[in-house]
């Protein structure tokens, strides 16, 4: 029987796992330890519900409901000097919880403080766009849509950004294989030669490390050299390797041979 491989996460896996291994966690500290973050959290809590909050590696992380994202971003921007939204992206948790985790990385330039606003949405659910508050969200949300398929409502130009407009699938989802899926292997063939020529061309090789054993146009084997393009599906002749006697010295023999050559 073929070995079962999970289809909901096709990313690289550790080939060795210890079932007694419990991964430690990066320590989290309480928000009250930092006066600035504590005051900020109080302000956020006054207007919206906060699910969870802590400080991890010097930055405050605030988990909120997805419907509150704009309210919180506006609050921290207008009242708390978090003038820059440096990054927006998502993490795929579809296999575990059927959810995406979206984070907004915010920067306060006056106090040199950073917070991360985190929210979770279900697959197929859309999030309100942050473009009215931060123009940096324009490209960032487009990339998030391109890579995960998360739609931002009221975004001025919700189109793919890095992948071609007619690409199928969202590459950073865990279900998307590293080498690309079936549609990816036909994409360029269809574009350049047309769908009708699929059979003549064949799918694109998207694995750069793939070696075809019988391909004598691109590969040759030392000791089994054959003419360019020869058909070797029935097997090939072994070519004895002949070394030049004049250039090579046999170091297993005495050093006299070397002296002779000199």
């Amino acid at each position, binding site marked *: 029987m073929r070995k079962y491989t999970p289809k909901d996460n096709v990313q690289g896996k*550790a080939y*060795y796992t210890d079932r007694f291994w419990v*991964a430690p966690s*990066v320590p989290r500290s309480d928000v009250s330890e930092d006066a600035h973050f504590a005051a900020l959290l109080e302000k956020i809590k006054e207007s919206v519900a906060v699910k969870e909050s802590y400080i991890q590696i010097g930055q405050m992380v605030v988990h909120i409901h997805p419907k509150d994202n704009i309210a919180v971003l506006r609050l921290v921007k207008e009242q708390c000097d978090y003038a820059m939204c440096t990054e927006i*992206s998502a993490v795929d948790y579809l296999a575990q919880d059927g959810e995406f985790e979206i984070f907004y990385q915010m920067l306060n330039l006056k106090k*040199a403080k950073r917070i991360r606003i985190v929210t979770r949405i279900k697959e197929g659910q859309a999030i309100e766009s942050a473009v009215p508050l931060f123009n940096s969200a324009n490209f960032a949300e487009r990339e998030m849509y391109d890579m995960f398929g998360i739609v931002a409502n009221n975004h001025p130009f919700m189109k793919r950004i890095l992948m071609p407009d007619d690409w199928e699938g969202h590459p950073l989802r865990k279900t998307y294989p590293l080498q690309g899926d079936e549609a990816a292997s036909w994409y360029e063939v269809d574009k350049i030669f047309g769908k009708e020529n699929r059979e003549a061309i064949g799918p694109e090789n998207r694995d750069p490390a793939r070696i075809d054993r019988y391909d004598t146009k691109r590969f040759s084997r030392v000791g089994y050299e054959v003419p360019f393009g020869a058909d070797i599906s029935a097997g090939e002749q072994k070519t004895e390797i002949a070394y030049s006697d004049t250039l090579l010295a046999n170091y297993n023999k005495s050093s006299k041979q070397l002296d002779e050559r000199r």
Partner: protein
Amino acid sequence: MMQQPNKLVPFFENLNFERDDNTMVVNFGPQHPSAHGQLRLMLELEGEKVIKAYPDIGYLHRGIEKMAENMTYNEFLPTTDRLDYIASTANNYAYALAVEKLLGIEAPRRAQAIRTMLLELNRIISHLFFIATHALDVGAMSVFLYAFREREFAMDLMEDYCGARLTHSSVRIGGVPLDLPEGWLAQMMAFLEKMEYELEHTYEALLTENRIWKMRLEDVGVIDAEDALSWGCTGPILRGAGVQYDVRKEEPYELYGELDFDVPVSDRNDAYGRYMLHVEEMRQSARIIRQVMPIYRKSEPQLMAHAPQYISAPKEEIMTQNYALMQHFVLVTQGMRPPKGEVYVPTESPKGELGFYIKSEGEPYAYRLKCRAPSFYHTGILQKVLVGTYLADVVTMISSSNIVFGEVDR
């Protein structure tokens, strides 16, 4: 004229290149010598005035974030070279620092000194490249040749240290792989003197008060503080808009906290101000490297952090001690397993704020890695700045924003 689409030249969607009124759509790139890589800009022109600009990116997309999810942490480090390939040590360092923060380790002092010197040397390399290509794009050919001569000396220094000129991989998670070679510091001193001399007597003499240079750069590509903040611009663009924010100064990492350097800032908001900033930043980099040299000389010879669970022991121990060899074997074959958690670490790369967000689930592969590339956002603001400028200034603005497409497309 009707477009004649075929399979290799597809129809541009909903796009009429020539219209009945005096507007026209110009397709700038993706193969254009001043597009600094693969930037396709669609410009809607009214006469020579840009009324709409639409940057189209993704021509150099290699899926580096996807690759990060399929590689162990040490395996991924050389891939970061390919982000901002003009100053690859800055990428290696930003990634290594993010993983170190996740692991909770700190590089030994000598490694920190070497890293700081390499980072600043990379800043000089990148800024020399900026001045060279900026001048070339605007039309000053000779500055390009002079600046590339100095850049070559700087890359020789990099080559002496790590053996590579562009893809350095000169930083490791937990420290640096090698000590500085014999006589490197003396060569570095000689280079800095030469660079500072040339900076003053060649580049600045050729450009700063040059009438044509000033006419082409002054009041071109105006980005004010409000726009820069809103569009997520960092680095020289943010400082060129009058906001004095440098991650090295405000959130110090490595040795920057104990060094004495200034953060130049310009309130001109235009391309000329940003050019002056780059020149001044190179002087500050030279100043930093000079301060780090005595720190390096005084430091202990240890190069990699001592954290046997995550970092291999030095080669000598691996070759002589059984347990170190066993741990090395596990780390090489399985990769390190950082604790569960997430981290976002910003660093000041030559282009701006380069940050890595890493989400770890305790596996040898990162669960999610996001590279916050400064050039990505600097490309985004093009759709705002270019509107209202003339076609001739578009190239000035692109080269003044100093975008590198390895980083934009990832």
